[in-house]
């Protein structure tokens, strides 16, 4: 059984990494795969308009509250850097925020909503994705689609600094230090995006003996993680089951002898949180870094003592989100607990006069094809 961030192995139409990837919306997705990739799917199925608060600090145009940056120049091509792994093999179900950003560009633009839940006919795309190697993707608009050609680099923090120095049009990062460095350039605007993810600890067999106070969570956000974070703030859509079918655990869990706090080893925030929790919980507890697939399996089986993972702060359909969450983590039930820890957000560093960006419903950004 796969995990929420894993593309279903039964999606037979997924292309090879080096192959051109047409619009992701055209990929066939198995229902089971959708269920298992609940967290990311939730980003893409928002029905509510739950914009984060970040846009309040963005320099919005008076005529469009969701517009992040405005550009008067019509550009043919633009370069983008994301400090997140991007693997087109995972399309259409993203496993990282970088993949989510890239795959959204390939989705049907008609289904996209802005931060107020309104359709956004002016966003660029949909795009055809081509992996040219060296962590670089070329995105070209499909026939009839609008928008500049995009070159997207997936880079580490160190390499991202080189791109910044070379003059990148858009930098998306979860690293405050990188964003701060990029913001030192005179020709860029650095702005935070909305709080888009809540990091939770899920315990299959009851709560952990940890401090869940706001002060503790604020300490986690301030000291434990190297991300733009805050103490998690409700309300949480998974905590409100009003009007939804009551979820029941379908899988009985056997007791475990280990005291492992598991995390996906590609997830630096989860790792930092897990390590901090281990430090607080004492000698008997250890942090267990798992490969994404192994983490998904462990999460499905409930074989570890606890799991640290992100959940989207917004979902289009709360009841559907809860149902998919329970459908994916079958042991979720009476004894299990989901404890929110911190919220995180990305930062965008935009080169002025190049790209126009618009906040989307899930606190991400979309590229505006042609601003009026």
């Amino acid at each position, binding site marked *: 059984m796969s995990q929420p961030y894993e593309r279903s192995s039964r999606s037979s139409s997924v292309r090879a990494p080096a192959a051109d990837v047409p619009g992701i919306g055209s990929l066939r997705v198995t229902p089971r795969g959708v269920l298992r990739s609940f967290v990311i799917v939730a980003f893409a199925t928002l029905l509510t308009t739950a914009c984060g608060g970040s846009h309040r600090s963005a320099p919005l145009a008076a005529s469009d509250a969701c517009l992040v940056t405005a550009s008067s120049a019509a550009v043919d091509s633009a370069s983008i850097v994301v400090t997140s792994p991007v693997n087109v093999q995972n399309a259409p179900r993203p496993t990282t925020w970088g993949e989510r950003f890239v795959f959204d560009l390939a989705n049907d633009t008609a289904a996209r909503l802005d931060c107020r839940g309104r359709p956004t006919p002016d966003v660029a795309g949909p795009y055809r994705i081509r992996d040219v190697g060296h962590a670089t993707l070329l995105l070209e608009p499909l026939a009839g689609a609008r928008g500049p050609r995009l070159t997207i680099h997936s880079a580490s923090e160190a390499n991202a600094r080189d791109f910044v120095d070379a003059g990148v049009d858009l930098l998306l990062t979860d690293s405050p230090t990188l964003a701060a460095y990029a913001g030192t350039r005179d020709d860029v605007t650095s702005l935070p995006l909305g709080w888009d993810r809540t990091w939770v600890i899920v315990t299959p067999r009851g709560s952990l003996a940890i401090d869940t106070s706001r002060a503790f969570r604020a300490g986690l956000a*301030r000291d434990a993680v190297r991300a733009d974070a805050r103490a998690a703030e409700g309300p949480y859509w998974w905590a409100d089951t009003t009007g939804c079918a009551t979820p029941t655990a379908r899988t009985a869990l056997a007791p475990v002898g280990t005291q492992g706090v598991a995390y996906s080893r590609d997830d630096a925030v989860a790792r930092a949180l897990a390590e901090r929790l281990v430090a607080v919980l004492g*000698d*008997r507890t250890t942090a*267990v870094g*798992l*490969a994404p697939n192994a983490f998904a399996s462990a999460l499905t089986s409930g074989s570890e003592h606890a799991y640290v993972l992100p959940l989207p702060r917004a979902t289009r359909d709360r009841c559907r989100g809860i149902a998919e969450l329970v459908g994916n983590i079958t042991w979720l039930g009476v004894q299990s607990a989901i404890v929110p820890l911190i919220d995180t957000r990305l930062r965008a560093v935009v080169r002025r006069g190049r790209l126009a960006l618009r906040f989307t419903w899930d606190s991400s950004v979309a590229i505006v094809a042609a601003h009026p």
Partner: protein
Amino acid sequence: MTFRSRLLIAFALATIVPLAMLGVGVRRQLTARLVAQHQQRVEGMARVAAQDVDRESASIASRLSTLASALRTDDRFRLAAVRGDAGERAYLLDWAQQAMRTTGLDMLQLQDSAGRIVSSGHFRNEFDRLEPELPRALALAKSAVLVRARAPEGPFLALVRVDSVSVADRRFHLVGGINVDSAFLQRFAREEGLHVTVVIPSVAPAQRSASREGPAQRSASDEGRDPQAPGRETSPSVGTTRIPRLTARDDTTARDDSAADNVVAELPIPYLADSLTTARLVMSYGIPELATLRRDVDQWFVAALGVVIAAGLALAIWLSRRLSEPLATLTHAASTIDLEGPELSVAASRDDEIGTLARRLGSMSTRLRASAARLRQAERRATVGDMARQVNHDIKNGLIPIRNVLRHLVQVQEQQPQDLATVFAERRSTLESSVGYLDTLARNYARLTPSVERRAVDVNAIVAEVATSIAVVGTIKVKTRLAEPAPRTLGDPVVVRRIVDNLVRNAVESLDVRGGDVTISTSRAQNGAVRIVVADTGRGMSQEELAHAFDDFFTTKPDGTGLGLSVVRRLTTDLDGSVRVESAPGRGTAFTIELPSCTPS
């Protein structure tokens, strides 16, 4: 057990035991010398390892000292740690990781004077945890100390030291060291086959559990674990047999390394668990040539043993044949000595002990032959006398009825002459029977080789004839109790008559003048034989008399020949029958004759 078997065993023991002792002795000596040589080498390597550990300790101390000096001039550190500048807190938390990278340490903690961790390199997010005992205990030790450092994925062994620095009147402790893992131990394994193991004292169950659940322990079965996690590479792990390995285990099992083919040297290292104790760096060197040497010795030993056993067996067989075969032949010859056969001449020509024994046996055989000849001569003479006495006895027995009849007739003639003819007619059969008996006896003796005639004999008739012919005096009564139908035996009627006649006569003679009864009974025994019992009420026989009753010439009567019962036994035997006697003093005697039946029972 035969002499040959004993000889073989003796030879086997005489050859195998010394050879086995020689083999074992050579094996032990070679092993001891080889082990001693390698022991010296391993101990030398242990001394070098001790120097390496000292150098590592000094290196760690030097790096900590450098960090301590750098801290005093680190303004961002001052801002965060002394002034509590929240903007520099991230720098403080990350400081130890950065310092670890620059110094090459694997473990680094920065603690304040209260023992609170303000920055940790190997476990970044353990900040604010209190661990004041560690720097205190390390301060007591003069050299590097092994500790079980805590990492997110589980504990790992580290060789650490402590240093201190004062910044703005605040005291900070730097605890840093290097990971004691396979890579660390690899440097001590300067030779192929050398295994280096760290043996730590027993740990508390909680600690052991943590170690078991650590990432390194799980790595073998779960490749999905994070290989980059702190402590991952530094946790205790078990290598292959060809590379040095680090094994964290209970001290009680440490001696397992000193197996027979290993030489072991140990280096004590301070170890801090709950208190300061001692762990051991165990250097174990397997001696491959030792096994080869043992194998070679064993092979040569087995080969030599085979040759010796074969030679010993051949020699033993040859010797045993030289010795035991003449003895066996002599034994067989001795067992078949025939006093009338040829002289014993086996091995008499040998000039050894066996020849002497053979000659002695031959001499003894010769003497026995002479004695036997003399014995036969005496027996022949005795037999003639016996014959004469038997003839006399038999004729006497035949004449007695005739004499009795004649006396009776004379008596009748004198007292009742008118009845003489009648009485004669009555007793004529007795006369004729006695005359016939004597005639047959005479003819038998005339042949000198009496042969037993075999025909059906009416035992009742013979018994009745004897009972009527026997002369009785006084109140003696001769009774018969005859079986019907009359039992018939297969034999000679004269012989049967002689048997019965002798027994009845013997019984009558055993009675004293006051009278008594003699009872002759015939019957069939259960086995079908014809049984004749002659019982009297006489004085009976003692046990001694009973033992000699059938001996020739044994008699208790003044005028007896001592041949009656002897003749009875011989004649009964001739008829393939048996005789037995039951008697007790004062209770009479009963002779039982059993003769083969003429017809099946």
